[in-house]
């Protein structure tokens, strides 16, 4: 069983501070949905509103189509996995996992059996009699997931559950979480400030900034077609140029910058002022000769070899720092330090975007 979640014009105020501003999201049943955003943007607040620890100041939250206003966390079909897991240290693992069943009055023998099933599901068979303190970080993680799954929630809410783990384990647990989600078919709402995590795991991603949802799309769209400057800059790297839009036509426009005038794709609602041009480093090329369009003369100032690609920092004639990337296909020529070259990019791969959607 899994349920969809709808947030309609949801706001949350702490005193005079608005932590979540007019959020509208529809998470589909069985979907893996991530909220991605920098620290303090209101991700946890959204999750706490869905799980029932905070009531929204305005707006409606529906779980499986039903308005959950006024329902306490213990009356909602959601299970929250806390940022610090919040396992119960005084209970053995099996009691931790079946705590939700214990409060529902399930007898002990059934609970023991259920605990063993869930431990097998999360790949920890036989750990039931250990104490929490005897487990490693990744194992605790899995116990937390098993504990949440035990109550057969229709929605799992995960608040940066992997942030405390080291890189290797994090990558392993990503795959594991995704597999568990597919196996159980439960709707997952996942919170993270790690863009790699959000892009790799999710069916769809909602990018947030300062309490507002900036864009909701599948991971590819988020990366390839960001709707505004915040999303473009937060998800992946970008070279940013300030300037002015000139003669927009057919989704393209000229963009006058101190480095010259470039042709680029015109993003939605980017007609007026306060817009910038965004070009990803991996969409740039470096060449000895000037290209036909969108070409900037630069001096190479730093070259760093990253293995699968080569990251290059170049300085333009106006002194701006520009980043470029060359894929290492085994025969790529690496430009020397101090070389004078031209950086160019396709008009299709450069986007003119408004700033973030924020208050004021």
């Amino acid at each position, binding site marked *: 069983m899994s349920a969809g979640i709808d947030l309609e014009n949801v706001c949350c105020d702490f005193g005079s501070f608005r932590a979540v501003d007019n959020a509208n999201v529809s998470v589909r049943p069985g979907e893996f949905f991530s909220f991605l955003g920098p620290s303090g943007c209101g991700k946890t607040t959204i999750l706490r509103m869905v799980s029932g620890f905070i009531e929204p100041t305005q707006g409606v939250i529906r779980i499986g189509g039903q308005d959950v206003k006024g329902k306490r966390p213990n009356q909602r079909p959601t299970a929250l996995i806390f*940022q610090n897991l919040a396992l119960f240290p*005084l*209970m053995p693992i099996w009691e931790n996992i079946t705590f939700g069943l214990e409060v529902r009055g399930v007898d002990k023998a059934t609970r023991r059996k259920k605990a063993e099933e869930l431990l097998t599901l999360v790949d920890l068979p036989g750990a039931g009699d250990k104490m929490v303190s005897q487990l490693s970080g990744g194992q605790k993680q899995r116990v937390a997931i098993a*504990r949440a799954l035990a109550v057969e929630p229709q929605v799992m809410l995960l608040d940066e559950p992997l942030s405390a783990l080291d890189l290797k384990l994090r990558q392993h647990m990503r795959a594991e979480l995704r597999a568990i989600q597919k196996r159980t078919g439960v709707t997952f709402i996942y919170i993270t400030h790690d863009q790699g995590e959000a892009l790799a795991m999710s069916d769809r991603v909602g990018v947030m900034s300062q309490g507002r949802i900036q864009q909701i799309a599948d991971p590819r769209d988020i990366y390839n077609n960001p709707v505004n400057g915040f999303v473009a800059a937060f998800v992946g790297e970008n070279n940013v140029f300030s300037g002015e839009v000139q003669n927009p036509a057919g989704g393209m426009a000229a963009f006058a910058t101190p480095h010259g005038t470039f042709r680029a794709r015109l993003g939605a609602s980017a007609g007026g002022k306060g817009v910038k041009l965004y070009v990803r480093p991996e969409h740039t090329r470096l060449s000895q000769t000037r290209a036909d369009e969108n070409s900037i003369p630069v001096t190479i100032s730093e070259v760093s070899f990253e293995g699968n690609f080569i990251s290059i920092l170049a300085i333009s004639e106006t002194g701006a720092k520009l980043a470029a990337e060359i894929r290492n296909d085994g025969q790529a020529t690496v430009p020397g330090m101090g070389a004078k070259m031209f950086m160019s990019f396709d008009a299709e791969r450069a986007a003119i975007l408004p700033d973030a959607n924020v208050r004021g």
Partner: protein
Amino acid sequence: MLRRYGPGLTLLICLLVAFWLLMLVIVPNITLFEQSFRPYLPVVEIGGPRDTYSFANYLKVLDSSVEKSLFGYSFSIPVHVYTFSLTIFYSMLVTVICFALAYPLAYYMAKIVNPKTLPTLLLMLFIPLWVSEVLRAFAWWIILAFKGPLNAMLLGIGLIDAPVRWTNMGYTGVVIGLIYTYVLFMLFPVYNAVQSLDTNQIEAAEDLGAPWWKIHWRIVLPHAKPGIASGSVMVFMLSAGSLLVPSILGSTTSQWFTQTIDQWFKDALDWNTASAYAFMLLSLCTVFVTIAMWLFKVKLSDIAK
């Protein structure tokens, strides 16, 4: 310490501490302990042939039986054993009531109250402690008086028809006074223990569907157990050993064991028996606390935390 204060000062501090421990704590207690095994004799006979060690002083507690009845069942019991049992019983009652009062307040202070108002709350709880224990006991004596404010208030709101003689109702006055005097000794250890519980655990339990009482029973109380145990030991020992409150707020029918000891010292001038009684109180209370801790599966090391 040696490096910080130099050898001279360190030696002095160590000597002072040793002096304090030895001369002011150990020696007087050992003297009393030794005396408790010797008979009470006229001065000329001290050191004489009758001055021998025995348990006679301790066995005096079994003298002079009285008839008592409980739940319609009457029995005869040595009067001092009776006093002792009641002292233990009412000390336990005080401990339980202190816990019942302190736990909700501790939980409220640790998990619910706005952190900004907490210092004010703590100050309000502390201020009564600055007033001397005697004054506080007398304050209750006034409150509980026949024509005092408590009766006036209860009459005013119509809860009683005639004033009640609170301080003449067995142990009522003593119990009220002891609770008031020692409740903070329960509150602060419990508060510390509850406060150290991660709020996320409470929320996790609620999120998993636990009703509020289950959250307390399975999450908060087990976590707070060491604090509750150390608070209980303190309140129990202090209550059983209190002399001031029972002598001020006691009634004609309430005798506390410390009062019996006091009478041996001051009225009978029999220091030997008084010491024997005092050590009996101390050791039996210790045994009692140890049994209680064993029953509740609390370790001594938990309490020291």
